């Protein structure tokens, strides 16, 4: 759907900062999360997970666990409905049905450590955890395949025997390569021949985890009428319903999903993990069964962002125009196909207008957890590689990094690397705002007395944002408030941003709209809270519903006043009659009279939006490095981002800062540190080093508003763009500080020391003239 709206300049609600509707419940601890649930008759489950990353299951014996006092049910893959090796659509694109079922519970083969093999339900948690240890599983361990290079090497062990790879359209068997695609424009050879400066670099990245505080959880009740109820912390109740129906071979209408409050997701709470297991246990024991993951299982068995190897080559002519770019991106899918490499290809060149480009993307199966979306999936990886190379080119040509980016900026009509033509985009506005920011205009004092070195870096980033389906129901209450029922689970303040869009149209205060996130039977279909679509698309549905409500209320006023509905005016929250200036009722007054005018007023807005309005960010960062230890401090950080229109600026700023924080963690310390056996050695928050408040400066935000013509208020997605540039920005700042180019994440202290040592050895061999 493409609609065009004129930007409106003044709003009453939009752009203000009311308290959030769910604020009291969150602050006082009354908000209900999945782990809080305690249903009558509820019992606990525990999951047995594979200690091997790659193995065949040769034998399984559950008899001891079944005999253990207090055990009510034991399930293995044999209890799952038979899955065939065929492609099915479970709501997030097509997947191989057998792979999806094996990911939930392995039937014959282990492809990542922590993959579930069996589960127990028992009277309490301790009993379930003790009983699960009594299940005997015999494995035939196989050589684990842990990197894209190992996976693509000749003679590599084949992880999925039934995998048919797609190599530029050719079917390939006995392979770990699920997919190889290419996007091509112009003539890259010719483009590089016109270049004066060419930089080509290869980058390596480690898997990283979203690191949400709340572990995965699920409560399931499978009743005697074959109806299944699920309570879970998820980014999409309807996505859970669709996955459950597909995996368990139930009609969707037999599955009812209640989304609980969610303690962070960042994309990682779109796939189901525990829900089908809890359901099968409940089916066997006919009790509500609760499962909650330990942190170790969250790291080992849920979906991190893919690591991999990326090569980027860019050429620039003498005038500073980019003439060509070529890139290879090989990303780790994990144990089953489906990395974010496709999205990475959509992002990699997006800040630029490049006449000749190629992108080759590979989706590679390795013996690590199956990757899942993580905030702008693929964009941080792609931009790290591209923006590092751009930085190096600016240095070679002596160009100011903002001037260079402005000169080469993508604009409306520019083609994205994967062929899509940009509509209205704000990259130029963002870069100009960055150049005017206090941070960029300041001079970084590089003089330190303690031998530390400082540097400044900048990088751009892009995320396309999605639209998709949303529906919202509004009901007028007779006290002048409006109940808003939505299906988008609230991860980052979207109750407020959706309610505010309805309130703006209705002319009432934000807090007079009362939002509720409903279960799958309380509201029409909604796509997941993901792709930065919620404030945009569900907000759009709220806008449509509010317009309908105004029309309905005009009809009610007309009835009361004996006027023709077309003669009723509505402005600033007041209904009036065109032909009789005495007849006026504000929203609240009219609400009280609805009972006498034809009964309750309820309306629905529903949208299916094909585009989301892509958005850009530019990040500026100052770092300080202790060259004796390799420790990096972030001294100052500014994020500049086009948000279309900031509905609630505080939550927009919060999203921007949050994305930066995750990006800083990814850049400096976060990684899946794998042993050669394929075990993640640092599967706890002690050793998976996310930044704490003491590791961060106040992150300065600059909101840029370039109206999105596809949305009534001009909204663009906000939540994902901010994680795209930080890794590159920090890498560029470290280069400015140290003179070394870091090409492998994370930039941990030991790695910085190794780079400095290599630098001093090179200097000793070849003294500078």
């Amino acid at each position, binding site marked *: 759907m493409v609609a065009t709206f004129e930007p409106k300049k003044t709003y009453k609600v939009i752009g203000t900062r009311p308290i959030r509707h769910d604020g009291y419940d969150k602050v006082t601890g009354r908000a209900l999360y999945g782990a809080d649930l305690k249903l009558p008759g509820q019992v606990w489950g525990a999951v047995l997970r594979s200690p091997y990353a790659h193995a065949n299951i040769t034998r399984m014996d559950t008899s001891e666990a079944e005999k253990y006092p207090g055990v009510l049910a034991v399930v293995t893959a044999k209890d799952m409905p038979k899955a065939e090796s065929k492609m099915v659509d479970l709501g997030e694109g097509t997947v191989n049905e057998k792979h999806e079922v094996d990911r939930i519970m392995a039937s014959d083969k282990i492809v990542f450590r922590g993959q579930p093999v069996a589960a127990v339900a028992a009277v309490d948690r*301790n009993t379930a*955890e*003790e009983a699960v240890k009594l299940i005997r599983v015999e494995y035939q361990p196989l050589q684990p395949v842990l990197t894209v290079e190992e996976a693509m090497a000749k003679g590599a062990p084949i992880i999925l025997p039934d995998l048919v790879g797609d190599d530029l359209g050719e079917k390939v068997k006995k392979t770990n390569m699920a997919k190889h695609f290419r996007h091509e424009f112009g003539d890259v050879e010719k483009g590089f021949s016109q270049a004066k400066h060419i930089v080509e670099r290869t980058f390596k990245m480690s898997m990283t985890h979203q690191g949400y505080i709340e572990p995965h959880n699920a409560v399931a009740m499978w009743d005697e009428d074959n109806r299944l109820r699920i309570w879970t912390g998820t980014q999409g109740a309807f996505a859970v319903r669709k996955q459950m129906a597909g995996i368990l071979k139930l009609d969707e209408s037999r599955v009812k999903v209640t989304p609980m409050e969610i303690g962070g997701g960042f994309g990682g709470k779109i796939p189901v993990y525990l829900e089908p297991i809890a359901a099968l246990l409940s089916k066997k024991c006919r009790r509500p069964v609760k499962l909650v993951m330990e942190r*170790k299982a969250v790291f080992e068995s849920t979906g991190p962002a893919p690591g991999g190897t990326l090569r980027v080559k860019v050429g620039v002519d003498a005038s500073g125009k980019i003439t060509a770019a070529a890139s290879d991106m090989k990303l780790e899918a994990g144990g089953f196909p489906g990395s974010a490499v496709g999205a990475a290809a959509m992002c990699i060149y997006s800040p630029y207008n490049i006449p000749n480009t190629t992108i080759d993307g590979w989706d590679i199966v390795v013996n690590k957890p199956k990757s899942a979306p993580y905030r702008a999936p693929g964009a941080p990886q792609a931009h790290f590689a591209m923006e590092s190379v751009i930085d190096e080119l600016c240095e070679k040509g002596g160009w100011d990094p903002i001037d260079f980016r402005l000169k080469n900026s993508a604009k409306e009509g520019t083609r994205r690397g994967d062929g899509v033509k940009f509509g209205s985009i704000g990259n130029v506005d963002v870069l100009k705002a960055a150049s005017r920011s206090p941070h960029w205009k300041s001079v970084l004092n590089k003089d330190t007395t303690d031998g530390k070195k400082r540097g400044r870096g900048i990088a751009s980033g892009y995320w396309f944002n999605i639209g998709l389906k949303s529906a919202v129901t509004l009901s007028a209450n007779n006290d002048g408030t409006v109940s808003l029922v939505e299906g988008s689970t609230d991860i980052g303040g979207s109750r407020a941003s959706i309610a505010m869009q309805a309130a703006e149209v209705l002319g009432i205060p934000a807090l007079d709209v009362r939002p509720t996130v409903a279960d799958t039977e309380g509201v029409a279909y909604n796509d997941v809270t993901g792709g930065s679509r919620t404030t945009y698309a569900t907000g759009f549905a709220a806008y449509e519903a509010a317009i309908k409500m105004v029309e309905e209320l005009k009809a009610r006023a007309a009835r009361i006043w004996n006027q023709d509905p077309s003669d009723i005016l509505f402005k600033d929250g007041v209904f009036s009659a065109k032909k009789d200036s005495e007849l006026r009722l504000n929203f609240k007054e009219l609400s009280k009279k609805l009972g006498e005018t034809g009964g309750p007023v309820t309306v629905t807005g529903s949208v299916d939006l094909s585009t989301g309005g892509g958005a850009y960010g530019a990040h500026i960062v100052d770092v300080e490095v202790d060259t*004796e*230890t*390799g*420790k990096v401090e972030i001294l100052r950080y500014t994020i500049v981002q086009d948000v279309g229109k900031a509905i609630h600026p505080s939550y927009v700023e919060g999203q921007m800062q949050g994305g930066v924080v995750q990006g800083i963690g990814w850049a*400096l*310390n976060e990684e899946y*540190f794998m042993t050669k056996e394929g075990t993640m*050695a*640092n599967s706890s928050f*002690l*050793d998976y*080093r996310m*930044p*704490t408040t*003491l*590791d961060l400066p106040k992150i300065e935000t600059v909101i840029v508003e370039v109206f999105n013509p596809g949305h009534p208020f001009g909204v663009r997605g906000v939540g994902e763009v901010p994680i795209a540039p930080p890794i590159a920005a920090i890498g560029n700042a470290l280069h400015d500080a140290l003179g070394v180019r870091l090409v492998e994440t994370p930039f*941990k*202290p*030991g790695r910085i*020391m190794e780079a400095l040592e290599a630098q001093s050895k090179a200097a000793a061999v070849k003294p500078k003239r």
Partner: protein
Amino acid sequence: MHPFAYVEPKTVKEAVAALSKYGDKARPLAGGTDLLVQTRAGRFNLDAVVNLKKIPELMSVKLDANGLEVGAAVPCYRVYEDPKVSAAFPGLIDAASLIGGIQIQSRASMGGNLCNSSPSADATCPMIVHNGVAVIAGPKGTRKVAIEEFCTGPGKNALAAGEFVVTLQFPKPSPTFGAAYERFIPRNEMDIAVVGVASSVTLDAAGKTIKNARIALAAVGPIPIYAVAASEWLKGKPANEASIAQAAAMAKAAARPITDMRGTIEQRKHLVEVLARRTLTKAIERARGK
């Protein structure tokens, strides 16, 4: 986890009896910041947890002419928030104020940190350079063990069945004593030492010559390492940069680190030298009253 008994003795004698009764199926509980996490992670298969915090000796801090005696279950904050202790025992304070984070320091004790016997324990090396002694109670009575002799391997120590640490004793430092502890972590809080180094010096009255020195190294061997050669070498040497550099190099030679997810052998050896230099410099400054 299977159900276990929770025992709360009021005296040292009762505690010895409880620990002796359950043997290696019991663990003493001080702050619990290691014990609870490790138990939930399945490291122990416990029949009893013995809370030591109801025993007065384990919860008292005594500072007198002889020195300092800290109950083994006294939480870190009580040590560093005491201004007199803080002034006299700077190395201990450096450690007590950086273990975990603020919330952890409200529960965790230096005694528990010692008994957990991790090579990376932040409190152990500072206790070594403050000439600390652990007072141990057990079925055969009370005995004392120097801190540097307490740990015997990762998670292993000198405690026999039924024994536990009652207090930690530190002699009163001379006016020309100074100590410091620094650890290297990639972040600024809530982290585990990649390397830690504690150093202490006692200077002559003029503040120019080192009369005594102790250097101890964390996270670079199976136990916290008392770097004897480097410490002994410093005796009688001038308190200057050259002496510090030589001692730091000798401390580096004493390190026996491994490569793991927290750091490599080369990185850790290098960090020992850097931190030994930094802590010796700070200890000398403190000894001179700066």
